[in-house]
């Protein structure tokens, strides 16, 4: 079932002024209920502009965006969208403003009008959901590390139990392990709770591991959309979009240029490792014997 339908969406900033910029041009896109889709594109490609239509922060200059069945041009619908579409901006920890973690996470749920027992239960559940200890709720956010703080900020949105979660580079500026942890966590929640996840990223390695489909934007135009494996194998298109294919895809292509084709196209480092294992063994290089 589609949960977001974008039809011929065009968005123009500052129309009629010398600063006029066409940020999006004739975008056609459908996001399905419960899927994990990555939205990739270089800086200025229109990713952020596009997702701001999904929770009614921006309105189309032309075309139509339907979220959860109704057009966002419908004012009543638009004003209620924030309850169901959670948007985690880049560096969300900068929006933390309370003195305790609990207060900060509780802000959204309280605004939904839930009573205090429900709010407190939701906050506790959410913190557990992302694997943070319950004691953190009484902590002062200023005393937490960058990675913890990022997870707390994401909890603030998750606690509202959005049906659609949009995240803009949730791993930016974090150490690799924490980045993986955050994404793995979101993936788990998506799978268990049927939440739809839209991940904005220019790190295709992450898209390769977590996303089911990838959409590529370039200068406001949707260049490609499809299953992750298909999109990530189009290295030329990715390059044109200012993106870099995952290491695994690049390595496979380099090897095939050198006359060593891999039996299938790998997406992740684990994939390559497995393919190479087969290749190294069938080539007579047994484990322990493959050196030099």
């Amino acid at each position, binding site marked *: 079932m589609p949960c977001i339908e974008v039809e011929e969406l065009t968005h123009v900033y500052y129309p009629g002024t010398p600063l006029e910029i066409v940020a999006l041009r004739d975008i056609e896109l459908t996001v399905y209920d419960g899927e994990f889709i990555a939205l990739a594109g270089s800086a200025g490609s229109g990713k952020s502009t596009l997702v701001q239509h999904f929770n009614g922060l921006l309105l189309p200059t032309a075309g139509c965006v339907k979220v959860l069945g109704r057009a966002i041009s419908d004012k009543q619908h638009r004003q209620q969208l924030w309850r169901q579409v959670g948007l985690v901006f880049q560096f969300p920890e900068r929006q933390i403003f309370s003195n305790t973690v609990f207060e900060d996470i509780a802000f959204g749920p309280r605004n939904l009008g839930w009573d205090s027992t429900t709010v407190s239960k939701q906050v506790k559940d959410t913190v557990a959901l992302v694997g943070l200890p319950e004691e953190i709720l009484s902590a002062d956010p200023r005393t937490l590390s960058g990675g913890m703080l990022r997870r707390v900020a994401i909890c603030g949105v998750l606690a509202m139990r959005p049906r659609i979660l949009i995240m803009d580079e949730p791993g*930016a500026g974090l150490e690799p392990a924490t980045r993986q942890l955050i994404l793995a966590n979101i993936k788990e929640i998506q799978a268990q709770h049927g939440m739809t996840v839209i991940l904005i990223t220019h790190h295709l390695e992450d898209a390769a591991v977590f996303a089911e489909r990838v959409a590529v934007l370039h200068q406001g135009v949707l260049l490609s959309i499809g299953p992750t494996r298909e999109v990530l194998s189009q290295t030329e298109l990715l390059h044109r979009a*200012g993106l*870099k294919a995952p290491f695994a895809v690049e390595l496979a292509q380099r090897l095939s240029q050198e006359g060593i084709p891999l039996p299938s196209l790998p997406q992740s*480092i684990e994939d390559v490792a497995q393919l190479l294992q087969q290749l190294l063994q069938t080539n007579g290089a047994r484990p322990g*014997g493959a050196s030099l």
Partner: protein
Amino acid sequence: MPGPSNILIELESVSYAYPGSKFAALQDISACVGRAEFISVIGPNGSGKSTLARVMAGLLLTSGGRVMINGLDTARPESRQEIRRNVGLVMQNPDNQLVAAVVEEDVAFGPENLGLPSAEVFRRVEEALAAVGLSDMRSRPPHMLSGGEKQRLAIAGVLALKPLCVVLDEPTSMLDPFGRQEVLQVLRSLSKSGTAVVLITHHMDEAACADRVWLLDKGCLLFDAEPAALFSQFELLHELGLTSTSAGELAYRLVEQGFTLPVGIVTMEDMVNFLCRVLK
């Protein structure tokens, strides 16, 4: 390691604790940066990387030990102006260091403050904008640039001062791969043309481009080595929540599967060369 006459920045048993904190953000760090050397600094969140950047730029004064920049002690107030001119700092969030309403004026801010003749200011702005690929956007207002473009602008502002060393605190964390590559190329050509570069980053493939890599953990310098040596320390890196480079991680997986690989495979080239040798 640079020879004694080639040392630009020298850290001598440097410690630092933030005011009011008992916890040492940096502990007994001794290291040096040579002229035109390219150093990258990696470490988990909270390991002291940003503090180190500020100490090296003379923005923070040490609680113990000494920082010498081009022979000047950062603790001496009279050398501060000279030090600021010698070391440029580019921060994580470019919004924190953009000052003007037009791109080229922002780049001109530094050289104008040095009191340079306007022809020289023009020349430097021109060069700096070209170096970061923003020449076409010179008359745009900075707030209308994308995150990546803003970061390149911040770098241009520092380059226009022609510093001896540029310290960058995760300058690429907001950039797309293309922008990241561009910044990296700028940094490489800087170090080739004689400017030292200290790059703090979470992208290991990026860190591997440096001449040397420093690994920080809990305020201590754990490792100071060439990329090939450091990125072969898989267990240590994983323990700290870090990774090796992509090629390094693949090498690690293959070693785990029981294959013997030469030590020091850190780049795509290394990996392709190795596989060609074995499989052809």
